[in-house]
């Protein structure tokens, strides 16, 4: 399996302010790790250089007014919300991030690589049609999804496993059955949305799946959601490609969130997704980096784990160093699992009309 890694040193240049958590340091240790592992010398890996997105690509998702605002704000500077400023020159970095997602998707569709991982900054999943939010400006994944559809793919599944709800992506595809949006996120938490009751509207009803989970949710919870919802959902939907909003702030060392996934858990999730993609959509997975703020104890190991899984490498030694064991023990909550089981039962009732895999066991 060849895994394309979309990366350019310019992905390090974006900076909202010198001390903002969505910072250059996020990728620096990861790159050290990848370089030290000799990742780019492996025959299973191909380094892809991102091309900036075109205005037309962006306009498939965002409004003209919003794009214009970003372009102008990139000259003057502006504030979108308490955590999201528009630093000068932003638009170049934002277009390169969205363009990176397109580069990764094109390489997959052109069969240059089997799947791809876009190591871009800034992230995108909180950005809606006409607004940015939560460190995000352009919705990289949504733009990539629309680009793929323009190239002829019909159905695309978006799995958003960032610890925060992907409210921007949800908004964009809420009424659209051609995009199955499925988000696993800490709840209640920023940005406040992401209730399991929100299943889409109009034609899109049933094609928006929220999986809110409590703080302390561990590998076990994610594995359960994967087997109980995500895999059967994908099997029934039969997407032409799977996009993953790969936020890595569910790692147990993340300072901004309260989830408790491990690097091995991440790698395992991705491995399952790759096996799934192999069976339903020619292995087409495009993973795009979203959040993730545990720069030292998390990101180097989770990013490596994801790439190893996507490239078909041995993931048995993907883990954090021993010094984090205590942190993990504190982060995991035993109360999380029963809450998640209850949530899944309720969600299934809500979705039974829309999905046969639920209906066949009759939950009503």
């Amino acid at each position, binding site marked *: 399996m060849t895994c394309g890694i979309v990366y350019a040193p310019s992905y*390090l240049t974006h900076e909202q302010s*010198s*001390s*903002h*958590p969505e*910072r*250059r*340091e996020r990728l*620096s*240790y990861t790159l*050290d*790790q990848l*370089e*030290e*592992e*000799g990742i780019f*010398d492996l025959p299973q890996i191909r380094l892809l250089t991102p091309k900036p997105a075109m205005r037309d690509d962006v306009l498939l998702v965002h409004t003209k007014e919003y794009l214009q605002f970003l372009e102008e704000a990139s000259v003057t500077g502006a504030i979108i919300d308490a955590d999201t400023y528009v630093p000068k020159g932003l638009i170049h970095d934002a277009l390169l991030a969205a363009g990176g997602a397109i580069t990764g998707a094109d390489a997959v569709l052109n069969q240059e690589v089997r799947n791809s991982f876009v190591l871009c900054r800034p992230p995108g999943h909180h950005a809606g049609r006409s607004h940015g939010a939560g460190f995000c400006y352009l919705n990289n994944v949504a733009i990539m999804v629309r680009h793929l559809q323009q190239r002829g793919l019909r159905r695309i599944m978006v799995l958003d496993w960032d610890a925060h709800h992907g409210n921007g992506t949800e908004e964009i595809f809420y009424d659209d059955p051609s995009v199955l949006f499925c988000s696993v996120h800490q709840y209640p938490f920023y940005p406040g949305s992401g209730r399991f009751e929100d299943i889409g509207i109009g034609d899109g009803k049933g094609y928006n799946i929220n999986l809110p989970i409590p703080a302390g949710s561990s590998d076990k919870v994610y594995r359960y959601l994967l087997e109980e919802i995500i895999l059967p959902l994908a099997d029934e939907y039969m997407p032409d490609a799977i996009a993953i909003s790969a936020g890595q702030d569910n790692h147990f060392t993340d*300072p901004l969130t309260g989830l408790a996934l491990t*690097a091995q858990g991440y790698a395992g999730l991705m491995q399952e997704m790759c096996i799934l993609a192999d069976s339903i959509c020619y292995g087409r997975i495009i993973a795009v980096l979203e959040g993730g703020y545990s720069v*030292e104890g998390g990101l*180097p*190991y989770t990013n*490596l784990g994801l790439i*190893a899984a996507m490239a078909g*490498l*041995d993931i*048995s*030694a*993907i*883990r*954090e*160093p*021993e*010094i984090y064991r205590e942190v993990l023990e504190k982060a995991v909550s035993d109360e999380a699992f029963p809450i998640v089981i209850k949530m899944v039962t309720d969600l299934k009732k809500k979705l039974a009309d829309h999905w046969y895999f639920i209906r066949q066991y009759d939950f009503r």
Partner: protein
Amino acid sequence: MFTGIDIGGTNTDIAVIDSQINTYKVPNTDGLDNALKKISSYGRLAISTSQPLNEIITGHPADIRTITIPGPGLVYPGAVKGSVSHRGDIVEPIDPEEIKKIMKGQHARAIAIAGKFSVRNDALEKQVYDIVSQFYSDEQIALSYPIGALNFPARIHTTKLNARIKGKVASLIRQIQRVNPDFFFVTSTGGLTSPARALDNSMLLFHSSPATVANGAYYLTKHENCLVIDIGGTTTELVPLKDGKPIFETVVLEGAKTMIQAVSAMSIPFGGDSCIRSDLCPFRAGSSRSFGGGEPTLTDALNVMGARIGDAERSEVLDHTTAQNVVHRYLETIASAVKEYHPEFLIGTGYLAHYLLSDIAERAQTVGIVPEHAASANAVGAAVSKVSLEVHIHVDSERKRLTLNGITYPYKDTRDEEHLLSYVTELVRDIARKEGAPEEDIEEIEVLYFSSYDVVRGWRVTAKITDLVLAIAPGISVEAL
């Protein structure tokens, strides 16, 4: 006075340069000691030893036990406990009992020890070394941290190769130091290194011949853009020069990347000693008949065609037609390889260049010259080279740690990038000075890479991490110009 020695496949070349250039050739059969006797202990001595080392590298696979300390990440063979993080912190200790168990009853010829991120902290590799050294001598143990740069798999591979040749390098050092205690080795990029650095990373000396040829040809002709054709006893090497410098490429051995850069060269397995059986053979079977060997060679064929190299009468066992065919075949082979480079100009070096270069140039539809002392251009190149270095530096202002090629140096709190740069530049100069480089050669320090970023904890910038790659480029010593 500069003395250069290149130990080739057939002969050892010696060049002594003071007000004039003198060159000598000594057959390898006489032994290195005899060659060393011909030089005085006065002045600077640089030795290119690629041939004896290449023989080991390309020879039988050696029995090397590799101990890796990978910690979390991808899977590596030979793994033991212990882990250094990307910040250079020891995050998991080694288990001494585990190492001892490996060493007990160990019968490998040498041991390679490589830890992930050891270039940011060498402590774990050294702890393993301490245990291994109870069972093996220092000359049989190679560590990965002095290699300096990130890339664990390539470092493992290079360390294994280092373990294979370290013993030979150590014995060469002892042999040479009996004559000249302060000598230099020539590296694969054509720079010079102290024996101590060569012991730490022996592969630096791999395949140094093309580099010496490149430096020698440039020194003798000052031609900046050309193709050097070095016709030796065993092989013919094509070395392109661009702006007076050879081109560098990463050495790939046994199908895997090493951490070694070497001069780009095409090696064609025909030289003056290539023997003639029914046709010209791509190997040597002793010396040419004209130098007392048993089987006729390319050199003998040239003698039959009218040259007078050595005892030409002994070459007469070949008939004229065979000789003509063999020479023709050689010229065609070389000329077609030369054409691939589309050279504007050829420089011939090596002891047969005088006899063959004009014919090669004609067939390759270009022109060329054979400079004076061309026969020993490699030794001239060794003599005039300068000390060169490439160092990878990692500075972490939070840990107050500065590592330079894996070795911890005193950290200095520097206000800004400029001060940091001038501090580390001076460190590099000091290393080169201690190795014996003259001031003129270390004035210019190249910054090949500079990257620095802030460490942010809780919405505050708490520290700065900087990575640099600095180099003193290989080339010709200012003193020799």
